[in-house]
Every structure is written in structure tokens, then in C-alpha cells.
């Protein structure tokens, strides 16, 4: 029977598993809305995770670690921006290069920490509210970055759909020529969107390595960056759907862990396939409505823009 404690435990677990996806997908969503497809999310997350882990291990400060992870994600996204926005390189190829680079760089950075664990005391509670029985625990004692992820998702929704700068950003993603002719700095806006994507991916990586599983393992993101990219497609570039999708995937991960520990005789590897298989299945369901996807895709997605052409 579903007791209240069990429900609270599952709720907190799902929120925790969904957090890195919300963070990374929120960043990617903004980038794609500005017309830039950055397939380097996995690489940016990994480098963010490695740098955050190293800095936290050396300084003992998780805050410094998360900030460093964010900075690392931004640095990588700047490389991506320079290549695709200034050098007009193919966005798909550049994103893949960024991921390959990130996998190698993170493994190199983390090499001396392999297997090391961080002792992070994150008995975080929002003062007073967190002490309220049941609801306090349910709503006010999640990880700080989980609140940040929700806050950012709501802020991005408001920014994109209700604010004038957000309208400009969407214009840059849908009709860069018109935005340029109107006098908006298309390239500068795209740079900012890409940097935001990098910062969020870096924080997502930091969340994984410093809070979620505070042990450094090579390739610890295990495809979450790619799932975040997929989530943006599932969500047809809309924030509320993206949130729903991220927690759905968080739920899949948690179900997988629970079946594993319940020892039902299902092989570990098949359970580990679940998130990837689920990604394919959801992608198929959403994409089969081609009309709907096309309607919502930013019209200039992945197309280079050069003002003088």
C-alpha cells in the first residue's frame, strides 16, 4: 500500500533524478529557441561534472564546485559559439565534436579522482517551512539545485513567453533575417543563448557529481545530456512539457533502481536500458505527428546566419 512516507520518498527521489534533466534541457531549450542546436550538452555536462567534483574536492565548498562547473560549461559553450556563430560551422558536427572533446577532457580532469567520493553534507531545509510535518518534507527539503532548476524553468518560461527580450530571442530563432533587419544583434543574442545553455549544462553536471552521486566515475552522465536534447524535442520546445518529460524520465530511472533492489530476477543490464528505450519510444510517439513538430520547431534551427550574405 502506498503510505505517505513511501510517497514522500518516491517524490523526493523522482525530483532528484529529474533535476539534472530539467537543468540541462532548460538551457538547451533557450539555445534552440534562439535557433542554435547544440548537441554538445553531454560534453558540457561531463566537463561541468568533472570540474565541479575537482573543485569541491580541493576546496571543500560545494558552492565553489557548482560555480566552477557552471563556468566550465560556459567555457565549452563559448568554443561552440565561436565555431558555429563566428566561423559559421555546421552546428551538428560542432556539437558532436564538443561532446567528444568533453568526454575526453572530463576523463582527463577526473583521472586522478577516479573512485574518490565527496562528503557533502546537504541536509538542506528551507528554515521553518522545512520543519512542517509531511508537507515540509515533501516540498521544502529538496536539494537546493532542485529548487534552482524549477526556478530557472519558470523564469525561462516567463522570459520566453511573456517578456519582450524573450520575444526578440524567439524572433532570432524563427526569422533571423527579419530580426537583423529590425536592428537586433542576431549573433550577440545567439551567443548569450548558447552561453546560458552552457551554464545550465555545467550546473546539471555539477549536480550529478557533487550531490546526486558524489563519486567520480568516467562518463558519469551516462547519456543524460543526450536525453536532455531529446526532451527538448519531446516538449516541442515548450517549457511546461519539458518539465513533465524530465520528471517522467526521473520516474523511469527511479523505477529502474527500485526493481533492481527488489531483486525480481530481471537482469541489471536490461533495467539499465530502460531510460534509453523510453527515449526512443517517446521520440517515436511525439515525432510521428510530423505536422505538430514542424509547427513548433524554431524555423531557423541549426541554420547558420551571416549578416552580409
Amino acid at each position, binding site marked *: 500500500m502506498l503510505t505517505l512516507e513511501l510517497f514522500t520518498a518516491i517524490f523526493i527521489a523522482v525530483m532528484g533524478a529529474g533535476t539534472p534533466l530539467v537543468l540541462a534541457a532548460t538551457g538547451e531549450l533557450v539555445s534552440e529557441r534562439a535557433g542554435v542546436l547544440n548537441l554538445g550538452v553531454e560534453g558540457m555536462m561531463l566537463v561541468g561534472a568533472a570540474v565541479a567534483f575537482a573543485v569541491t574536492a580541493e576546496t571543500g565548498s560545494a558552492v565553489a564546485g557548482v560555480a566552477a562547473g557552471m563556468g566550465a560549461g560556459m567555457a565549452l559553450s563559448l568554443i561552440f559559439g565561436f565555431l558555429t556563430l563566428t566561423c559559421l560551422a555546421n552546428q551538428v*558536427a560542432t556539437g558532436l565534436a564538443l561532446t*567528444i572533446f568533453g568526454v*575526453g577532457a572530463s576523463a582527463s580532469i577526473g583521472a586522478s579522482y577516479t573512485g574518490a567520493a565527496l562528503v557533502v553534507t546537504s541536509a538542506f531545509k528551507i528554515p521553518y517551512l522545512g520543519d512542517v510535518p509531511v508537507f515540509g518534507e515533501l516540498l521544502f527539503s529538496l536539494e537546493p539545485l532542485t529548487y534552482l532548476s524549477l526556478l530557472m524553468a519558470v523564469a525561462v518560461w516567463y522570459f520566453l513567453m511573456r517578456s519582450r527580450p524573450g520575444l526578440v530571442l524567439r524572433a532570432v530563432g524563427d526569422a533571423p533575417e527579419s530580426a537583423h533587419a529590425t536592428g537586433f544583434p542576431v549573433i550577440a543574442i545567439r551567443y548569450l543563448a548558447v552561453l546560458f545553455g552552457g551554464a545550465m549544462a555545467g550546473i546539471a553536471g555539477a549536480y550529478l557529481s557533487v550531490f546526486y552521486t558524489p563519486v567520480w566515475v568516467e562518463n558519469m552522465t551516462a547519456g543524460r545530456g543526450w536525453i536532455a536534447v*531529446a526532451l527538448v524535442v519531446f516538449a516541442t520546445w515548450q517549457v511546461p512539457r519539458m518539465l513533465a518529460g524530465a520528471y517522467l524520465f526521473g520516474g523511469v530511472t527511479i523505477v529502474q533502481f527500485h526493481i533492481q533492489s527488489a531483486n525480481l530476477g530481471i537482469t541489471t543490464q536490461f533495467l539499465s536500458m530502460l531510460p*534509453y528505450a523510453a527515449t526512443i519510444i517517446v521520440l*517515436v510517439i511525439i515525432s510521428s505527428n510530423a505536422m505538430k513538430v514542424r509547427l513548433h520547431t524554431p524555423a531557423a534551427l541549426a541554420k547558420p546566419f551571416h549578416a552580409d*550574405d
Partner: protein
Amino acid sequence: MLVKLERRAHPSRVMVAGAPLAAAVLTILGGSVLFAALGHDPVLAFHAFFIAPVSDLYGLGELSLKATPLMLCAIGLAIGFRANVWNIGAEGQLIAGAICGGGLALYVGPSGGALLLPAMLVAGALGGMAWAGLAAFLRVRFNANEILVTLMLTYIAGLFLSYLVYGPWRSPTGFNWPESSDLADAARMPRLLAGTRLNLGIVIAPAVALLAWIFLARSYLAYSMEVGGLAPKAARYAGFSQRRMIWLGLLAGGATAGLAGVIEVSGTIGKLREVVSPGYGFAAIIVAYIGRLHPIGIILASFMMALFYIGGEQVKVTLGLPSAITGVFQGMLLFFLLMSDLLIAYRPRWTGMRRASVRRPSDADA
């Protein structure tokens, strides 16, 4: 703005050939800076990474051994990339090929005859095609993005191989290591040269490249695919089937990657184990690009990428650097190539300290 980009009237032929070379030189320079930043003598590190591994026959053999799967995967990928079919799951198709070809060898056991090896190669290619074909089907039938599907299938293939070598295919005499029994002699690629580990694979891969070259240069189908990649609207107008392009692009990549997988298992490794490839399928994406999606270019580029792999192993031994630094080099190489490619279509013009000239609206949309 000090430098302004002007679109060239015609793409620069010099840069088409020169950009990969420029990228290679820039990567080596960038790598030396990286080594210096890590506190190593850049000259020594350069020697350890690029020269020492290939200064004897054994090293050259190892280089060719690593170039083989890279070459095979990249050739198949290039056929798809030319048509804008983004198969980035060659790693998974390689694993599928390894499972099918290796599985056949394990099933037949020591009783296999002369036909076993060819049968394994076919099984491997078919396995890779099946794995890629799944993505093609989902793309054609449900419009599901092939980048994401092929990538997710790569994770699934890796986990399935892991299941096999931890479970039903685990060697009973292997001290519980997650690997299969050794393949029988009939299932192994013949060695070619004493003093090296070179096997028949190094002949098969260039042969496949040659076939691909003929296909790309001579066939109407390849022509229609290239039009589809360069000018999708023109291709549609000409009545070239987009579905056929997607199927062909993905199946070609799957077949060669599967072949690479079974050659790795039958040649270099000699059994199935949890990891059969250190990311050859991903590195092949870079090889395809550095090789300009052309079979001859790919053959050259695969040797360069192979050097990065053994260089990475070498600096691990001699300098104590993590071998993952190979990935950093791979990424840098593609970064520099993409950067240099800018100069194919554009010409940089020094505009001095003046403000950029006034744009005339009539020039818009060249």
C-alpha cells in the same frame, strides 16, 4: 570589426584540401601547448605522442590495426553524411556486428571450417545493418530523429553486450571475468606479418573503401544521394526518394560498422568482452569529416586518428597522463577543421580600424 568575412564567388579548392592539413597542424600545436600547460616538456611529449609509437615495425602494425575499424566505420558514415543522414551511432552498430559475428563463432565452436570466417563477416555486417536499419525504419515510418535514435541504440547495444558476457556467454573457465571463451582458430583473422599483430582486416578495409569510391563516383544512386544532401529541394523536384536515401545512408553505415566490429573480435581481441571498442564509432565521425567524406581522404584520416589512439596510450605509459587525452585531441582536430572550413566559402578581409562598411540592402541574400 577588424576582419570582415566576404563570401567567395566560388568555393576555394585550395582550402578544401588545405583545411584538413591546417587542422592537423593546429591540433599538434594546440596539443603541445596543452602538454606544456600540464607541466611537461612539449618536445618530449610531442615525441612520445606522435613519434615514439610508430618508430618500429610493431608500432606501425598497431597503427594499422587501429586504423582498420576507424576506416571502415568512417566510410559507411560518409555515405550517409553526404546525404545529410546523421548516423552517429556507428559505435552501437559496431557492437551489434561484434555480437552477431562473435556469437556465430561461439555457436559453431571449434568445429568450424574454412567457411566460418566469411560467414562471421557477413553476420557482423548484417548485425550492424539490422541495428542501423531500426533507426532508419523509425525515421522513415515515424519521423524520429536519427541522431537521437542511433545514439540511444548505442547505449542499448553496449548494455546488451554486457549482459551477454556477464551472463549466457560468459566463459566457464574464465575465472568469472566478464568475457566469452576464446574464439576457435578457424574463427580468427589470419595474421599477415610476423612481428606485428596485423591481420586480414587491414586488407578488407581499404578494399571496402575502394568499392565505396566506385559506388560514389559511378552510381546514379550515389549521385542522387549527394544532390539530396547538398540541395534537398532540388532532389525532391528531381523525384529522388528521400526514404531510399535514409535507408541507404543508415544501412551503409551499419554494414561497415558491423564489419569493423566482427573484425575487431575475430582479429585483435579474439573473444567477446564487455568493451570491444574504445569509441572507434564516435571517432569515425571525425575521420569521415577530416577525410572530406571521400574514401581516399578517409583512408589517410583514419591513420591520423589511429595515431591519436596509440599516442594516448604511449603518453599514459611514459608521462603518466590519462589516455583519455586522446578524446581531447580528437575534439580539437574537428574544432580546427570546422574553423578552417570557414575559409572555403568565405574570404577574410582586413578592414583596419574603420567601422565596417555600410551594407547596401540590395546585397542581402546572396
